C-alpha cells in the first residue's frame, strides 16, 4: 500500500469539514466551494473559540502586569512561541519572533539585516517567482543603499534554474531570499539545496514560507535556513499574526526593527538599551488574541498531522490536475515536477476575471489576477491566471463542481 492510500483512510473529511463552520454556508445560493486557500485558509471552531475565550476571560496586556490576568495572558501567549518552535523544530523559542505576517517578517529582515549588512554595490538575490512582499522590501533597500537586486530565472515549467542560481552567487551577494513554494505556480523549490549552495559562500538565506508551512513539514534545523517567515492566517489561524524565525546569532547581530514598548531594557532621553530576544523585535502590544488563537491552529494541525495533510492534498491535487486536463482549451501555468496544491491555469482566451465572476455565481471561490506576482506574469507574457488552491478540507466532489463550472464558463464566453 502506498503512503497516500494509507493516509486516505486516516483522514475523515466529513468530520474535518464540520470543524470549519464556514464550509457549510452557501454563496449565491450554492454550497461554498472554497478554492482560495492560497490567499487565506478557513478557521476551525477551536481557533474561533480560542479568540472568544481570550476576550471573554483572559484579556490583559502581556509582559508587564503583576496581576493574575496579565500573568495568565503572558503565559498563554508565550506557550504559543514554544508551540511554534516545536512546529518548525527550531533550537530555541527566542528564535521565534512574532510579527504581523510574512510581509512584516520580510520587511523586518530587509530593514534590520539589510541596513546593517548591505552596502553600495552589494547584491540581494531573489527569484523570478517571488510574491511582491519578497520583492518590494528588497527593492526599497537596494534603492536606499545603492545595492543591486538580482533575480534567479525560471524555466517554462516554472522551476528555478539552479545552474543560473549558482552562477549568480558571488562575493557581492549579501543575502538570498526565495520562496519555499510559489503562490502562483505551486512550484516547490529545492530550498535545502539553495541554502547549502549559498552557505558554501557564506551567504545567509531567507525563506518565504507563507505557502509552505501548512502544506509540508518545515524543519528549520534540517533546512539550515537563516530566516524563515510565515503567516498564521494561511495555516487555519487568525489574520494579523506571523512569524519570523531567525538563527539566534544573526538576530543578536542586527538592530531592532521598530522602537517602542516591550523592546527596551532601559530608556533615558540620552540612550536606550534594547531588550533581549525575542522582545527586541516585538515593539508595542502585540496581537495577543491572535497569537493565542494561532496556538489553537497549531494544535489543530498537529491533531491531524502535517504529513497526513500533505499526503491528502497531494492526492487531491493529482486528481484535480487530471480532471482539469479534460476541460477544453485549458492551459496550465506552472508545470513543476515538485508541486504543492496550487493550480494556475487559463481557459483559451477567456479573461481570468470573466471566469472568476461566473464561478463566483456558482459558489466557487477561486483567485483571479496576477496573485501579487506581476514580474512572474510578465515572464509568462500573461496578465493573470485563474488559481485554484486546495486545502485538506476540500474534496474530490468539489473539484468536480469546479470542472463543471469551467464548462459553464466556456459555454458562456465561446
Amino acid at each position, binding site marked *: 500500500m502506498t503512503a497516500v492510500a494509507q493516509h486516505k483512510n486516516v483522514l475523515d473529511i466529513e468530520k474535518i469539514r464540520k470543524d470549519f463552520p464556514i464550509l457549510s454556508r452557501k454563496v449565491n445560493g450554492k454550497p461554498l466551494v472554497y478554492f482560495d486557500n492560497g490567499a487565506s485558509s478557513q478557521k476551525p471552531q477551536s481557533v474561533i473559540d480560542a479568540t472568544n475565550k481570550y476576550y471573554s476571560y483572559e484579556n490583559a496586556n502581556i509582559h508587564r502586569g503583576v496581576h493574575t490576568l496579565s500573568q495568565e495572558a503572558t503565559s498563554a501567549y508565550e506557550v504559543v512561541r514554544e508551540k511554534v518552535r516545536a512546529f518548525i523544530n527550531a533550537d530555541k523559542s527566542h528564535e521565534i519572533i512574532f510579527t504581523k505576517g510574512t510581509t512584516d517578517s520580510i520587511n523586518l529582515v530587509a530593514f534590520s539585516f539589510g541596513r546593517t549588512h548591505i552596502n553600495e554595490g552589494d547584491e540581494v538575490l531573489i527569484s523570478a517567482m517571488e510574491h511582491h512582499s519578497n520583492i518590494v522590501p528588497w527593492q526599497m533597500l537596494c534603492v536606499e543603499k545603492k545595492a543591486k537586486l538580482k533575480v534567479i530565472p525560471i524555466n517554462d515549467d516554472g522551476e528555478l534554474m539552479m545552474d543560473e542560481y549558482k552562477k549568480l552567487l558571488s562575493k557581492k551577494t549579501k543575502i538570498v531570499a526565495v520562496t519555499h513554494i510559489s503562490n502562483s505556480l505551486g512550484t516547490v523549490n529545492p530550498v535545502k539545496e539553495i541554502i547549502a549552495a549559498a552557505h558554501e559562500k557564506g551567504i545567509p538565506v531567507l525563506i518565504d514560507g507563507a505557502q509552505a508551512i501548512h502544506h509540508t513539514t518545515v524543519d528549520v534545523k534540517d533546512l539550515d535556513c537563516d530566516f524563515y517567515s510565515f503567516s498564521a492566517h494561511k495555516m487555519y489561524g487568525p489574520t494579523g499574526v506571523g512569524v519570523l524565525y531567525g538563527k539566534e546569532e544573526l538576530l543578536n547581530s542586527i538592530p531592532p526593527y521598530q522602537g517602542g514598548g516591550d523592546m527596551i531594557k532601559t530608556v533615558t532621553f540620552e540612550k536606550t538599551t534594547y531588550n533581549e530576544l525575542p522582545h527586541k523585535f516585538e515593539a508595542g502590544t502585540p496581537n495577543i488574541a491572535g497569537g493565542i488563537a494561532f496556538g489553537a491552529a497549531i494544535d489543530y494541525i498537529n491533531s491531524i498531522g502535517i504529513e497526513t495533510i500533505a499526503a491528502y492534498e497531494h492526492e487531491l491535487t493529482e486528481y484535480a490536475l487530471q480532471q482539469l486536463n479534460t476541460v477544453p482549451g485549458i492551459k496550465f501555468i506552472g508545470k513543476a515536477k515538485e508541486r504543492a496544491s496550487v493550480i494556475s491555469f487559463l481557459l483559451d482566451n477567456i479573461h481570468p*476575471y*470573466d471566469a472568476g*465572476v*461566473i464561478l463566483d455565481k456558482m459558489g466557487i471561490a477561486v483567485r483571479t*489576477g496576477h496573485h501579487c506576482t506581476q514580474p512572474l506574469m510578465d515572464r509568462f507574457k500573461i496578465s493573470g491566471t485563474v488559481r485554484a488552491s486546495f486545502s485538506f478540507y476540500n474534496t474530490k466532489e468539489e473539484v468536480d463542481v469546479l470542472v463543471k463550472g469551467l464548462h459553464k464558463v466556456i459555454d*458562456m*464566453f465561446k
Partner: protein
Amino acid sequence: MATIKEIEEGIIEEFGYYDDWMGKYEFIIELGKSLPLIDEKYKIDENLIRGCQSRVWLYAQLEGDKIVFTADSDAIITKGIIGLLIRVLSHQTPDDIINTNLSFIDRIGLKEHLSPTRSNGLVSMIKQMKLYALALKTKML
C-alpha cells in the same frame, strides 16, 4: 435624445426579463459586443483605468455640447458593464453627467460590482467618466 433617467429606466426594464444571474450575465456579455469601441490610437496608457483585474480604456470627446464616450476592455463582462455606462452617459451634457446619481446598477442586481474589491469595477469607471465631463466642461467655457 433621452435623458439619463429615461435610459436607466429602459435598462431596468430590459434586465427585468431575466430572473436568474445567468440570463443577466449572458445579456451583459451580449452588450459587451455592441460597445462603442475606442479608436485604436486612443488605446494608450493615459486612457487606461488601472485596476487589479481587467484593463479598461476609456476616451471621451465633445460633439457639440454633448460628451461621447468610447471604451474597450480585455475582459468581456467588463466590456458589458462599461457598455451599459456608456449607453446611459454618452451623448449627455457635462453638467448632466457630473450631477447624475446612477441608480440602475443597484436595481438590475449588479451591486456586487460596486464593491471596493472589484477595483476595476463600476466605481472607478463612473469616477473617470465624471472626471472627463468636468475636464471637457472647462474646455467649453
